[in-house]
Each structure stands twice: as structure tokens, then as C-alpha cells.
């Protein structure tokens, strides 16, 4: 019985197999329509997350399975003080696989150690979110046709965003990757990612504060939100905020085949006028998220 708590638990072969499975699901959805007939997914969401929860639920329904669960802790026995361990043991009696979102870091790991069914980490605070990383990889594979030989720009909050750190680790396993980190000085990539992932693996990268000056060399631009609460003072935030808003004007300098990704939700860092630009793929990214979750559910349930 296998769970997925952290993306690093999957080796390169397993990630590639999941991507290949998702691509097959996209190409032949009818083959998979009954694969999970009679199986149940429990979505245990201790905090609201519309996108991730609906993505898991849609994934299970499209595999012919059923879904049960809760979407906030107030409607679960956690409100009565039940431990994550006990909830995991109980739900194991009802369902075949669990997807858990929890505000506390490490909660899905505790669940996986106590459940008798596979547990998928659907996000634990700002810690891990492995299905977002798988979603990002499938998006890149589908949109660019490859996972290696790419110049990837990451823009915005590169210090606190675990989504970004996971993606850097995951892409660093493929050859010919070059990163361009575009962020204010206050939100640069942390040292443990720079030394522990990039320098350790000899991955070329550059750091800049200038989005306009670097957009032209990118194959992928991955946008993230610059959050007000990350700054010590309001002045710095207001000074920096607008320089990391992607506009049509900025997109003029980008290549014709560059893609724009974003883990969503977007606030104001991508102007809505870009949504109709074929290079904007963040809503397609949402769709790929459903397919990779279908592939993951099949893998964890041991269904081919």
C-alpha cells in the first residue's frame, strides 16, 4: 500500500509513467471510464480549496468511482477534537483512497501512517503539494512536448512558495534545464534550494529583478503571486507589486511559443487581457491537473 506525501517519493521513472498514463487518459478517456467502478475516494479537506478538491472529485468520477468526504473542518469530527490519526483509521473503513488537505504541516503524513488505504497529500499548509507539481510537469510536457532542454522563468514570490521549490527540484532531474529567477531581492530563492538543488546538480540559473528584460529568452514563464503579508512595510510592497504584473505590453517581448503558467488562484499578477492569448495556459493547466490526478489514483489503487 503506497501513499504520496512528498513529490520526492516518486523516482523519475514513476513520474514519467504517471505523465504517460495521463497522456493516454487524455487521448482515450473512454478506456478509463469504468476503471474505478465500485471504488470510493474520500476527500478530507480541513480547509477550503475549491480547485484541488473539485479536481480530485472530478478525477474520481471520470474513472467511474464515487466520492465522499468533507470540505471544511467544521463539518468533520475534527471539530469535536478527533485526531488526524483516528480520522484516517475510521475513513479507511469507508473508502479506498484518501485525498487530504490540512492547514497543519505533516498532517497527511500522520494520516498515511495510520490509514490502511493510500493517502494523497492535497496540500499541507505551505509545506508540500505534490499533485500541483505533477500537474505542472504534465502541463509542460503537453504544451512544450518535452521536459528537458527548456529555459524556465519563475517570477514573483520565490522565497516562500513551495510550489516553486518543488517544481525546481522536479525539473532539475531532466537534462538541459536552465532557470531564470525573477523576483524582488526580498523574495529570492532560499539558500537551501540554491545550494541543495541547483548547485549540487550543476543546474545553470540566473537571478534578476527585471521581468521585462528577461521574458524574451524564456520557453516557460511561471508566475506566482507577490503577497502583501510577505513584506515588512507597505511601501516596499507597493513599489514592487506592479513590476511583477504580467501585461499585454510585457508579453510583446515574449517568444511566440513561450507559455505562461500559474498555479492559481490569480489575484492581480496576470492581467485578464492575457487570458485570450494562446500562450496563456493556466486554465489548461487546471484541466491537466484533473488528468494527472486520475493517473495517480489509478497508480495508488494498483489499477492499470
Amino acid at each position, binding site marked *: 500500500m503506497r501513499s504520496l506525501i512528498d513529490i520526492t517519493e516518486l523516482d523519475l521513472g514513476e513520474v514519467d509513467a504517471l505523465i504517460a498514463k495521463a497522456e493516454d487518459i487524455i487521448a482515450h478517456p473512454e478506456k478509463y471510464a469504468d476503471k474505478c467502478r465500485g471504488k470510493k475516494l474520500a476527500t478530507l479537506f480541513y480547509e477550503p480549496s475549491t480547485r484541488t478538491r473539485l479536481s480530485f472529485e472530478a478525477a474520481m468520477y471520470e474513472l467511474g468511482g464515487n466520492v465522499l468526504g468533507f470540505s471544511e473542518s467544521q463539518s468533520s469530527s475534527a471539530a469535536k477534537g478527533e485526531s488526524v490519526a483516528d480520522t484516517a483509521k475510521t475513513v479507511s473503513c469507508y473508502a479506498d483512497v484518501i485525498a487530504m488537505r490540512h492547514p*497543519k*504541516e*505533516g498532517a497527511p503524513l500522520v494520516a498515511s501512517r495510520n490509514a490502511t488505504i493510500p493517502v494523497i497529500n492535497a496540500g499541507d499548509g505551505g509545506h508540500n503539494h505534490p499533485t500541483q507539481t505533477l500537474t505542472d510537469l504534465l502541463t509542460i510536457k503537453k504544451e512544450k512536448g518535452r521536459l528537458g532542454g527548456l529555459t524556465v522563468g519563475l517570477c514573483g514570490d520565490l522565497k516562500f512558495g513551495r510550489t516553486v521549490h518543488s517544481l525546481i527540484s522536479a525539473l532539475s532531474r531532466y537534462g538541459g534545464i536552465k532557470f531564470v529567477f525573477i523576483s524582488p531581492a526580498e523574495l529570492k530563492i532560499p539558500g537551501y534550494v540554491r545550494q541543495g538543488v541547483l548547485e549540487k546538480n550543476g543546474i545553470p540559473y540566473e537571478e534578476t529583478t527585471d521581468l521585462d528584460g528577461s521574458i524574451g529568452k524564456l520557453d516557460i514563464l511561471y508566475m506566482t503571486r507577490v503577497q502583501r503579508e510577505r513584506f515588512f512595510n507597505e511601501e516596499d510592497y507597493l513599489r514592487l507589486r506592479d513590476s511583477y504584473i504580467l501585461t499585454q505590453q510585457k508579453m510583446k517581448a515574449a517568444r511566440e511559443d513561450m507559455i505562461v503558467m500559474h498555479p492559481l488562484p490569480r489575484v492581480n499578477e496576470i492581467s485578464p487581457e492575457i487570458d485570450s492569448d494562446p500562450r496563456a495556459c493556466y486554465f489548461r493547466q487546471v484541466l491537466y491537473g484533473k488528468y494527472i490526478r486520475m493517473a495517480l489514483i489509478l497508480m495508488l489503487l494498483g489499477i492499470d
Partner: protein
Amino acid sequence: MNIDSIKEGIVIDHITAGRGMTLYRLLGLDDLDCSVAIIKNVPSRKMGKKDIIKIDSDIGVDTDVLGYVDPGVTVDVIRGGKVVEKKKIELPEVLTGVIRCSNPRCITSTEENLPQIFRLSDPKGPVYRCAYCEARAKDHNSN
């Protein structure tokens, strides 16, 4: 200064000078009702000076605590007045129930029945990280 040699018990030797009291506290030696001696700043040819703890009872000491606080200490088991076992303590790979995670976002902050587990992530330092949230453990001197 003379401390009687022990017949049955344990000698924790080669403690870095100044860490004897930290070990005394973390090993829970204040709960014992046998004789316990902490000898501080003992002259040592290798170390310059060192601390030594002598426990006049054959109790099991938590070698994880020893390895975490001061890797390189030795534990001598004494029986019938003779050293029957001598162990050099290395840095432990896993620490269970020794230190607490101080990250308020960690699941252990709300579910107190969970065992506190830390894994060695970098022997240089050394750096231990919480098994649940991966937060870096604070230095043992601040515990």
C-alpha cells in the same frame, strides 16, 4: 578532587566541557535516586578539558540524547568494578522524543500525542529536521 570509583554503573566520558549539565537535564538524571556525579572541567590530554558523568546504577541511558548533544562521548558500562563495555556514541540518524518541534504550523503543535521525531538532514552542523514539517530543529543549547 576525589569521586569514588563505581562498582556497578555507567560512566559517560569525553563530554565536551560545559555540556555535562545539558546532558544531565535531557537524560532525566535528576529523577534518579542513586548517586550521580557531574565532574566539570576535568583536565584532558585530547580535549584540553572535559566533563564526566558517573551514575552509580546500571541504568540504560538514551544514546540518541548523548549523540545529539555531544557526538563523540563514550559510555563505559561498569560491572564488578570493571569496564565490561565501552561505546563511542555517534550522531543519531533519528531522534525520537528528545526535542520538540517549534514550528507553530506543524501538526505536532496541535496533536500533542504524536511522537516528536527528527531526522538528521546534514551531519555538518548538525542539522536535524522535523519528520512531519521539515522545520529545522533549534540548537540544543536553546532547549
